[in-house]
């Protein structure tokens, strides 16, 4: 059964590559990108190791294993998954034992582009400890088992919490918490190594005692014990790591069992919403009602809600950094022009929605596109909702940054830059949305995916679009910054007016072009974004 599930994953991957040209480009590109990044990180890690003494070197590898494990487990949940996993619900009626199912899913998880990362990292570890080759291989295999099982258990746990409507907010808080604690941990590590140096920091914080029993540390201790000439240590830590893998497998199996036998969400009277519909208040035009529908989805669709709460992560990070005085934000606190960053920072938040206007419709695109709405109205309604959300976030962020930096005087430039930033973002987003809509993963197969199916292309599209938006914003930003830098040599009203006109012109031009493209490509957009 293990081999059959692995074969199934391989077959699905192959069929996907054959059928989808975006995947044919994205898949090898993703492997190359991940391979390159892993190689660079491994080279830097090994470079750092060379400067350390024996004790510190061994401790450093333990820390490396721990950080690798944490990143592997948390990153797919916080950002987006690189892989599509097999859907366990598909096997609900198959005569597969729970142990077989878990083992099969674990094996199938190894058939994915992201596996290039552990292959390079663990391969480097084996090379590093090649003089104790058997222990190095055993340690690498155990670490691979630990990260695969841990990653699957954590993703399934989030999915399970996410499955309960009541739990969705908890899942969101967990994700926000992961982001925040990741940043704080990074700040703390930087602070400690800055104070004590790498060797001192590692030796001052050894992963001994109870920390040694953490799954990745135990797996890595197999090889460090061999390095220290302790065969008993090798056996002992290998047993600990194996026990962890068994425990993780058991937990995963229990979670899967719960998920397969629990309905998605329990409708309850308390969750019943107002039956007044969309007609109760507000202007009654197609564009406005479409915007109102979008705003409801921003709140009710957990994935969209997460996109919009991305700003909260930043605000939390900024506030905590200023409070603890760590990281680069501490330096920025003295800069009175900090509020001017708010419009640019909000671009990071709105991009997944702005660049994939129709992708978020998923199957409902076929409902929307049989309605007699002009393409321009469709885009306008959706943009209107995004504008409201972005404006609220920008204003909140600008106020916070003004409070942090004391740059209240420069708030006057924020409205102009805000309109320019939103206008340019939506301008680029509309074109990208109609030319290259991205299919979102089917709900339930991933947790917080933004665009995983086309993998690297999604990342590429976002990067290129962000670059283009940045270019478009150079001139209005320069006018505002020059005005501030030259002590209001230019009128703030001019800077604001210029930025607003700039944003509006680009947005209007894009709306005309994108509507014209959408008029011709509606069926193609529907077929691209539908998930079944």
């Amino acid at each position, binding site marked *: 059964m293990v081999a059959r599930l692995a074969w199934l994953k391989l077959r699905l991957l192959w069929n996907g590559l054959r059928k989808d040209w975006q995947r044919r480009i994205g898949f090898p590109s993703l492997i190359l990108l991940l391979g390159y990044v892993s190689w660079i990180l491994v080279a830097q890690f090994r470079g750092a190791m060379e400067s350390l003494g024996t004790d510190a070197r061994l401790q450093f590898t333990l820390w490396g294993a721990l950080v690798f494990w944490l990143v592997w487990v948390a990153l797919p949940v916080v950002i987006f998954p690189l892989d599509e996993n097999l859907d366990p619900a598909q096997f609900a009626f198959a005569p597969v034992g729970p142990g077989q199912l878990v083992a099969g899913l674990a094996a199938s998880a190894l058939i994915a582009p992201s596996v290039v990362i552990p292959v390079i990292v663990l391969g480097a570890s084996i090379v590093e400890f090649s003089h104790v080759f058997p222990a190095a291989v055993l340690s690498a295999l155990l670490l691979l088992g630990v990260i695969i099982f841990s990653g699957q258990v954590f993703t399934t746990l989030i999915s399970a919490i996410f499955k309960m409507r009541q739990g969705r907010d908890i899942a969101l808080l967990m994700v926000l918490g992961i982001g925040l604690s990741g940043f704080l941990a990074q700040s703390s590590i930087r602070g400690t190594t800055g104070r004590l140096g790498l060797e001192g920091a590692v030796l001052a914080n050894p992963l001994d005692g109870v920390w040694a029993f953490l799954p990745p540390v135990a797996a890595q201790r197999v090889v460090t014990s061999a390095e220290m000439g302790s065969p008993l240590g090798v056996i002992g830590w290998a047993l600990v790591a194996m026990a962890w893998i068994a425990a993780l497998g058991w937990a995963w199996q229990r979670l899967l069992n719960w998920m397969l036998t629990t309905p998605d*969400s329990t*409708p309850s009277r308390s969750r*019943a*919403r*107002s*039956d*007044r*519909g*969309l*007609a109760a208040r507000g202007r*009654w*035009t*197609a564009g406005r*009602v*479409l915007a109102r*529908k979008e705003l*409801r*989805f921003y709140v*009710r*669709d957990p994935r969209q809600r997460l996109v919009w709460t991305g700003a909260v992560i930043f605000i939390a990070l900024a506030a905590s950094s200023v409070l603890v005085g760590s990281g680069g934000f501490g330096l920025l606190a003295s800069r009175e022009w900090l509020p001017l960053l708010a419009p640019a920072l909000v671009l990071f938040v709105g991009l997944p929605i702005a660049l994939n206007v129709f992708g978020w419709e998923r*199957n*409902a695109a*076929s*409902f929307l*596109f*049989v*309605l*007699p*709405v*002009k393409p321009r109205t469709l885009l306008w309604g959706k943009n209107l909702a995004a504008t409201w959300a972005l404006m609220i976030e920008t204003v909140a962020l600008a106020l916070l940054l003004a409070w942090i930096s004391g740059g209240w005087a420069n708030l006057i430039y924020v409205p102009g830059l805000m309109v320019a930033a939103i206008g340019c973002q939506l301008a680029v987003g509309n074109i990208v949305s109609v030319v290259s809509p991205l299919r979102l993963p089917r709900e339930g197969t991933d947790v917080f995916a933004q665009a995983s199916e086309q993998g690297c292309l999604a990342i590429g599209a976002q990067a290129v679009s962000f670059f283009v938006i940045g270019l478009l914003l150079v001139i209005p930003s320069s006018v505002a910054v020059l005005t501030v830098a030259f002590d209001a040599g230019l009128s703030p009203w001019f800077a604001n007016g210029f930025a607003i006109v700039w944003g509006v012109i680009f947005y209007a031009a894009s709306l005309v072009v994108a509507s014209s493209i959408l*008029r011709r490509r*509606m*069926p*193609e957009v*529907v*077929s691209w974004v539908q998930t*079944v």
Partner: protein
Amino acid sequence: MAVTMTTAEHDETNTTTAPAVWARGLVRKFGKSTAVAGIDLTIQPGEFYGLLGQNGAGKTTTIKMIVGLLRPTAGRAGIGEFDTWKDPVEVKRRIGVLPEEFNLYERLTGAELLDFTAAMHGLKRDEAISRRNELLDLLDLENEAGKLVGDYSRGMRKKVALAAAIIHRPDVLFLDEPFEGVDALSARLIQRLLVRYTEGGATVVFSGHEMNLVERLCTRVGIMIAGRLESEGTQAELCARYGADTIEDAFIAAVGGDDDRGAISWLHDSPG
């Protein structure tokens, strides 16, 4: 042998009014396979037209091309005087489409979904509210109006999808499996509503597999086989053409499916 009445014949008999639904040489290919292989279709106003065919015969593909959700490889289609691919908005103003239930906005409530559809069709606010309430009441959904569509049962989704398809009183209504999962009482109610709707001059294009409903409701039937409109006519004409007593027998005779298949030795033997 195709026995479809030609477009010219239809045009001769109905020279005064534009057909409610029409297609001329409609073709759709997916790679090397041909899903729809040149369909000519003319449906007059007030008709309750049943489009029958086996799974994969091309019924849904044909409907998708007529309503503008799928671009034809060749040919034209339209509603009344409008071409779907030249005047898509005008065509969409005149049609209602019952989508598959999983294509609805699951995170809108039933009331919100109907308001949204009404607004997109340009109904005035008061009229939208009034029609929405009437439809919810008629379809027994008034107590569920504040629940998310995603929380509805399959039958309730069909009902709210139907309400969304007719809230603007379209000239032509396309129904794909409209009674799947709907309870008997509601199904009877919907049937009565649809019959009255066509009596008022509106047109229904019905695609489904429930032959008893086709017999009860359809004034004309088209049978699709492998992407072609193989046969078309009133129920009496089709029964006479295939020497059948019922439309189900006529359909089976048309698709040539009444053979001796259905016998699998291992399946019929007792276990063990």
